[in-house]
């Protein structure tokens, strides 16, 4: 058995821990199975997956990817970003702008160039920052570039001046709040409060078609899988261990000669790009992107998903993203007047009782059991180089 990545190069597939394998297998199974069950099985079949469920699951997968991106920075590098919703939303807007341009002259005012809301505001030409979005490749580039650039510039300033801990959290919050206000403005040219909506098709396929939904679902599964592998690659590399070193003892890392800000900047930017991709996949599946996604409350909620799932475990974060959102779906319908009590109670309970999150706690229990049955065997626990974040960690 390979003794972890510390002893030489390990192929990526061997660096995946058990939970990660489960995640990947579930994703492969769902990525193929769900579209199959929706498209091929008759409606009467007990295994038929209705379209609304496909859309819902696709949305969860996007949230899982978003949670993954937050876990990468928070769980492994100790950067608590309260502004990740901004990167998600920017990716979403880039996609939304493409879909908007795809509407062409099918809008209510029939203007081939201008989206309806611009016609409405008496704009006579497309603003420059909308150029190029009619091309799919350009939009996809922007999906990654815009959040990435924002994260890079923001991080470059913040990490260079060594803004850390709570201060960093608060200014990331200020960032997303400022963007929220900016995108609310109709004069910005992003549709104001209504945002972008009423999309027709993507790459020529109708967004209302079941097959398109299945394809988007599969794409989300693939994105989550690839995103997971990328994160796993990073955290199991030596760079990943440097990140954890930064999280646990930043100045020690510095005195060892590592440029902490470069590592932070790298991981923050990668994470922002992942969040942007999640946003881009989210938008065609829910059919709307609006400034509400920038609200600080949303970003805090993402952090909560990660905490619930288990910080510093990657697959745990993905699980948290799915679970909390599933809970939201379920409880907002099952007990619309009480669900906030449940959700709030859940957050408190998790922080008090399961400080390592669901996955972290299960690992802990598993560890206790294992030690009881095979005392003395003190080999390294998980395959990855990284132990879960300390319960009290953060700064």
């Amino acid at each position: 058995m390979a003794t972890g990545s510390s002893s030489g190069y390990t192929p990526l597939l061997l660096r995946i821990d058990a939970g990660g394998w489960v995640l990947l297998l579930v994703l492969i199974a769902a990525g193929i199975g769900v579209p199959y069950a929706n498209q091929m099985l008759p409606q009467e079949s007990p295994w038929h997956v209705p379209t609304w469920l496909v859309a819902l699951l696709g949305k969860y997968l996007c949230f899982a990817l978003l949670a993954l991106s937050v876990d990468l920075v928070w769980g492994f590098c100790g950067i608590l970003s309260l502004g990740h919703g901004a990167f998600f939303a920017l990716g979403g807007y880039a996609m939304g702008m493409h879909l908007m341009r795809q509407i062409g002259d099918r809008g209510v005012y029939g203007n081939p160039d201008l989206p309806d809301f611009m016609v409405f505001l008496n704009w006579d030409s497309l603003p420059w920052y909308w150029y190029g979005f009619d091309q799919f490749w350009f939009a996809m580039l922007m999906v990654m570039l815009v959040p990435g650039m924002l994260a890079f510039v923001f991080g470059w300033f913040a990490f260079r001046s060594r803004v850390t801990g709570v201060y960093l959290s608060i200014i990331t919050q200020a960032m997303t709040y400022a963007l929220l206000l900016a995108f609310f403005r109709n004069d910005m040219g992003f549709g104001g409060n209504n945002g972008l909506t009423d999309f027709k098709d993507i790459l020529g396929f109708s967004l209302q078609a079941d097959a398109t939904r299945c394809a988007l679902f599969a794409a989300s599964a693939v994105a989550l899988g690839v995103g997971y592998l990328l994160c796993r690659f990073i955290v199991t590399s030596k760079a990943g261990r440097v990140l954890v070193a930064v999280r646990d003892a930043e100045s020690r890392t510095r005195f060892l000669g590592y440029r902490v800000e470069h590592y932070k900047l790298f991981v923050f930017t990668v994470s922002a790009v992942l969040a942007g991709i999640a946003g881009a996949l989210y938008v065609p599946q829910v059919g709307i992107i609006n400034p509400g996604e920038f609200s600080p409350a949303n970003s805090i909620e993402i952090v909560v998903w990660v905490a619930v799932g288990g910080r510093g475990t990657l697959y745990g974060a993905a699980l948290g993203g799915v679970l909390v959102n599933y809970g939201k779906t379920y409880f907002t319908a099952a007990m619309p007047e009480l669900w906030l009590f449940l959700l709030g109670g859940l957050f408190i309970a998790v922080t008090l009782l399961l400080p390592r999150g669901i996955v972290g706690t299960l690992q802990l229990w598993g560890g206790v059991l294992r030690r009881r049955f095979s005392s003395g065997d003190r080999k390294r626990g998980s395959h990855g180089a990284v132990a879960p974040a300390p319960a009290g960690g953060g700064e």
Partner: protein
Amino acid sequence: MTTSTRDKLSTSILYVNAVTVSFDGFKALNDLSFTIDPGEMRAVIGPNGAGKTTMMDVVTGKTRPTSGDILFNGRVDLTRLDEASIARLGIGRKFQRPTVFENHTVLDNLELALAGSRTVKHSLFARLSGEARDRLDELLTIIALTDRRHQRAGALSHGEKQWLEIGMLLAQDPDLLFLDEPAAGMTDAETEQTAELLKGIAGRHSIVVVEHDMAFVRSLGVRVTVLHEGAVLAEGSMDAVQQNPRVIDVYLGR
């Protein structure tokens, strides 16, 4: 510049000249000057608040001096560099409280410290060479943690953490080492071992040991610098220093 200072400049590994650090008017270092020769081990003592920690902060780039020069190897101006660059030049530092990466294994701790490229790109695709592996084995032997190489550093005892941290410094292969109270919190036996360890590595590296424990300093048997109120009060052998009336005054007079 006098001949002697030029001389010192070119021969010394560290040249600290007239360094002053003030925080809101309080001078933590006041016109501090001293030099360390290549391969020298030096002990620095002084009462609380004498400026020992600030001195190390200034040299290792954590704090910028208000005025003064610090030259490394006679040519590099350290006052303009940050911690990481200074570390990369070959200056290592051990903190007063042992600081290791508690969630990493002993081996990973050493590997992270091992000399080599520190860039993000390199570390993303880094793989361990056989040479490096041998070096790690060697270091583990030096700090006597070979058996515990796969254990989480957080699970080590206080003394073991001190050693691990020293091991990490050695892994960096620095020219100049700053050790802040390396024997603090150790048993007598451990203290003795530590002294032996340091003596063993001196010569290949220049070492500055900041210590409270007089017995430990004596057991090192090296030149001693006494700091007081941010400046050098006395310098010489332990015996000479202990005879110095001003030193006695500072240590006993209050």
